[in-house]
């Protein structure tokens, strides 16, 4: 992990920060006993793109009009990693965090959006990952609690 940080710093110094969005680690998932016993796994955008993609078209309280969001379903990712926790702590770059119930994630198409209207999400636009709930398709979800769970600039998920 330390080595990785060094590499990342070097890359940054080399002025490859834009490339890092595509190549660098954008998500770290931590869960006890997951990931073939490693306890955690990191993902680059490319690695996330390999997973089945889901598209959600919705409005959000922080955007104008409807947008199309694309990314892996949270439940899909959890299945992929063999995580069966009841809830996840979603952590953001700005140190915001929220607890996301996995039941909701399997009941609704909750995605870890990496693209908005086919454009890769950047940090300036809630990237690299934005947890998107289908608010427009399920109006019952359009409430403050859900809003608080729609973490943007997500960089880590951990199961406790």
């Amino acid at each position, binding site marked *: 992990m330390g080595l990785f940080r060094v590499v*990342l*710093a070097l890359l*940054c*110094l080399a*002025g490859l*920060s*834009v490339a890092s969005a595509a190549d660098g680690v954008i998500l770290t998932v931590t869960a006890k006993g997951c990931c073939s016993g490693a306890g955690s796994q990191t993902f680059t955008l490319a690695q996330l793109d390999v997973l089945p993609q889901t598209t959600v078209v919705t409005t*959000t*309280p*922080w*955007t*104008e009009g409807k947008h199309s969001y694309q990314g892996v379903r949270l439940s899909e990712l959890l299945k992929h990693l063999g995580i069966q926790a009841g809830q996840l702590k979603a952590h953001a*770059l*700005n140190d*915001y965090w929220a607890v996301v119930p996995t039941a909701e994630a399997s009941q609704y198409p909750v995605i870890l959006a990496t693209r908005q209207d086919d454009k890769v999400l*950047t*940090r*300036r*636009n*809630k990237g690299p990952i934005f947890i998107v709930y289908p608010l427009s398709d399920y109006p019952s979800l359009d409430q*403050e609690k859900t*809003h608080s769970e729609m973490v*943007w*600039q997500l960089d880590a998920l951990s199961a406790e």
Partner: protein
Amino acid sequence: MVRTKFLLLALIMCTFLGVTIWSTWNYDRAFTQVTRHTHLSAWALAQLELELHQFEGAVDYYRAGRLNQEKLNEAYDLAWNRLDVFLTGREAKHIRERFNAESILRPFFVRLQSYEALLTSPHLLPSDLEPLDQDLHNTMPAIRNLMVLNFTGPTAMRENAELAGSSIQNYVVLAVLLLVGLVMLVLLFLEARGQQFLAWNNPLTRLPNRAAFLLHLRQLLRVAQPQVVLCLFDLNRFKEVNDSLGHAAGDRLLLTVADKLRKVVTEGVYLAHIGGDEFALVLSGNMTQSSWFGFTKRIRSQLSSLLYKADPAHRVSVSMGISQFPQHARNADELLLFADLALTAARHDDVHHYQLFNLKMLSHYQRKRQLAGELREQLSRMADSQLYLCYQPVVKRHDKTRLGAELLIRWNHAELGFINPLDIVEVAEENGLGERLGEWVFQRMNQDMDRLPQPLVRRLDLAINLSASLFNKQLTEHALSWLLDGPILPGQLVLELTETIALDDFTMSQRIFADLRAAGIRIALDDFGTGWSSFAYLKELDFDKLKIDKSFIQKMDADPRLPVFVETITALAHKLGVSVVAEGVETQVELDMVTAMQVDEIQGYFYARPLPIDKFHSFALNYLQLEGGETAANKAS
């Protein structure tokens, strides 16, 4: 009253609905204010300040050489994202639109974006950030200012005041609802109490009603009592007050009576208003025979004088019937029944209108009840009935070829012997059997006549007494249909009517008379001279015959005044074209006298008593000088 109540209830419901809707709306408004406007916008503003502050720190660190460009860019991106979110979404819309927030932050966002090329440049020098640093230092106080204004400014204060006000309003609303609920409860209580009162009290006099009275009586007798006296009384001819002076006058009279009675109620006396004009006094406790006797007598005389004054026409009087426990009755039901019987007897007691129950009344009542049941049964039979008809010949002075007869009902009761015909009619009328009895008489007459030889039957004129219930619009129709089954023609039938049949409606009576006459049936006025208004009847209605009551005929030779009546009535009747029958002629002297007075027909023991059909057959054969033996024998076999 009902209308007012309904309106009040509707008003209460409207108030409830209105207050509820208003309260909900108010609460929602306050809630929205707290959550969306205060809570969310405060969060958005705080995050904005925090992340811009962090970016400002990152710039300072970078310039101090303590932060790399990647971290600087990350802070830049976060600030960018935050400003974008703050200026775009609906979450921050409320705060954006206040305190010129948007006009401060949008230009700042544009300026921030302009540093993009610089910040991502691989040749970024710490000194290049001087303008950005300055810009941030200049803008941060304005954002701080927004924070302060949002929390402590007049708008925030007003919102807080509104919230506090809304809380007070909610208390007021609750208080109003509580009050309305209380009013409804009170109304409900009053209504229930009113209904309860009406269930047990007479609405006019507010005295306990029949149900309350019965309950009281039963409860009273459940506990051993040395003596209970039940005194029932009602107002004779009270209906006439209602009819002539109006129901308001009737109600006033009842109220006067009730007030008077209330004054006599002392301990041990229970007063109830158990029917239209019927009251009850229950006397219990230790009182001597003479004391309650005096008490009831006193009440009766007080009421009598009160009624005498109250009714200008002095028609209304009071009847009182009394029964005692345990001397007469063994329980409440008997006590009531016995008092009722005494009251009935009192009504018929024209002098005192006051009767104490005695066993004769009970046996009379029981006999009547027994007779009613048995009469119904006897009327359903024909051949083996205990009822039969007797025929009393009526001789025509001017036409010896015809014979009249009055049909009289007889009941040879298996246990009680012969029942008084008047009782039979009374029992029938009281039990709704009047028409059935009439029909039975016709049927039996048909049966009797079928047994007689036809030549004889053709020479008979038969008179049937009408009971009150037969005298109605369908009389002719009924009589004709009943005659259809027998040999008697309408022309041979005479219907006898007494004055006791109330002819309230002369117009209707005249119509019935016209119908009968059109059918060929004759009508006789029976017992003439005994009623109150014989002449009124004679004046208003077209009778064919008039039967002078036997009280005028008998002892005619002893009382010189009687022949005057008979002679005059006969003369009057003849002038009116009405033929005259003398009833009750028993002696040769009487016969001679009525014959001299030109009476047309004669009925009485002098010729024959009422005869059973076989004896009447013989009498008729003999009287009409008919050789009917053979035919009669044929018929009889």
